[in-house]
């Protein structure tokens, strides 16, 4: 060790700042996840469609989002939307929309994988009693796929929690931005960044743990 003298007590006085930042981080994460589900659930189902013109645009969306960095998506929406569409949005709204669109692509992939994981015999059994494709999806396939999708959904939620730090690049006062601000006041970057990591671990790890437990439970029951 280089003999650095940790002085955590200095930043502990500023704990409400971390609470405020964590609250914003959680808010952004929940809102982005919700939007991601609203986009991703139908997108995942449409990606399985037999009709090409339904499938193709959704596939394009998923591939473009997955092959570009979330940070680029955020700055693109933040700086290009106002110019291209004359749509000026607040920084927080931008983050929710950008991360929501981002998450939607990953949720679509989770939905697709979930549907594919259902035994092909289930589709055949439903067909054999004359059930329509839409009804088969709703009554036979999705109830079975849904369970398998829950652990990766929770995992994705934890991912967005971490991705939400990108909001600091457009000055949204979430955890990272609050921390940077605090450093400008107290000049203790090591303490602040270390504590920031601890806070993130505390709000992210429970979700990862939950996802793992649920997955283990599904495996036991199978």
């Amino acid at each position, binding site marked *: 060790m280089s003999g650095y003298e940790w002085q955590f007590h200095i930043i502990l006085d500023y704990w409400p700042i971390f609470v405020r930042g964590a609250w914003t981080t959680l808010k952004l994460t929940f809102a982005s996840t919700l939007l991601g589900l609203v986009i991703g659930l139908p997108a995942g189902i449409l990606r399985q469609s037999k009709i090409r013109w339904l499938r193709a645009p959704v596939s394009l969306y998923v591939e473009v989002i997955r092959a570009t960095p979330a940070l680029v998506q955020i700055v693109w929406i933040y700086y290009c939307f106002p110019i291209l569409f004359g749509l000026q949005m607040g920084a927080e709204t931008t983050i929710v929309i950008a991360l929501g669109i981002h998450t939607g692509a990953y949720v679509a992939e989770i939905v697709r994988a979930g549907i594919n994981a259902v035994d092909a015999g289930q589709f055949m059994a439903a067909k*054999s*009693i004359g059930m329509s494709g839409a*009804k088969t999806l709703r009554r*036979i396939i999705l109830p*079975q796929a849904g369970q398998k999708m829950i652990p990766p959904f929770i995992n994705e939620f934890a991912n967005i929690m971490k991705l939400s730090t990108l909001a600091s690049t457009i000055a949204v006062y979430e955890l990272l931005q609050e921390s940077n601000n605090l450093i400008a006041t107290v000049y203790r970057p090591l303490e602040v960044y270390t504590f920031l990591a601890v806070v993130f671990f505390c709000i992210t790890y429970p979700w990862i743990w939950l996802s793992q437990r649920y997955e283990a439970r599904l495996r036991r029951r199978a």
Partner: protein
Amino acid sequence: MLTITHLSKAYGDLTVLKDISLEISANEVVAIIGPSGSGKSTLLKCLNFLEPYDGGEVRFEGELVGYEDSPRGRRPARERQTNRQRARMGMVFQNFNLFPHMSVLENLLEGPVQVLGEPRAEVTERALGLLTKVGLLEKRDARPSTLSGGQQQRAAIARALAMRPKLMLFDEPTSALDPELVGEVLATIGQLAAEGMPMVIVTHEMSFARDVADRVIFMEGGEVVEEGPPSVIFSHPSNPRTQQFLSRVLHERFHP
């Protein structure tokens, strides 16, 4: 009841069904036997269009299955029409394929209520009668995963019957079962046959085919090699390929 004319099917260059013509009449029990890969399961799935066919046609009660004729020629039928045809044929699968997220009774109700739109109370009464018949009344609220393979297959047969089909299709119904569970399923199918339900059974159970079927069809390499009453097919098959197949499976049965 069911007329198959010059039916053919290929996956790319691989021909799986070659020019098959068969007629299945009402009240008839037909067993299809043959080595694995002979196309017998594919043929069965073409009958209710779970597998689309490329050439020839299948007619069920006079109606073309899976396609429709228009002034500009034959084209795939609308989903709704094919589904309506499928609803009139019951199918039982090798792997049961019960709906795992529903109870046994709900499995039976699903088709009649959701597809045929029959009143739930009425269907429930009929379903309980069917469960009694297959000996599973006390399992009506159980999940399929808690049942033995034999019980699952009997539940699957009841599910198919709940639709009040005109014809039953069995796709190797005992192949996934432990040997000691085969008997109960065959007994259920046999009982159904005795009641006069027309059926097509793809099976490896030669003695069952001999006892239950009115007609046996031997398939190999995607074509019907020989057909006739079981007494003829099993005792005096005329085609050397049939003779060879039967001597092999019957030999294996007694000298595994």
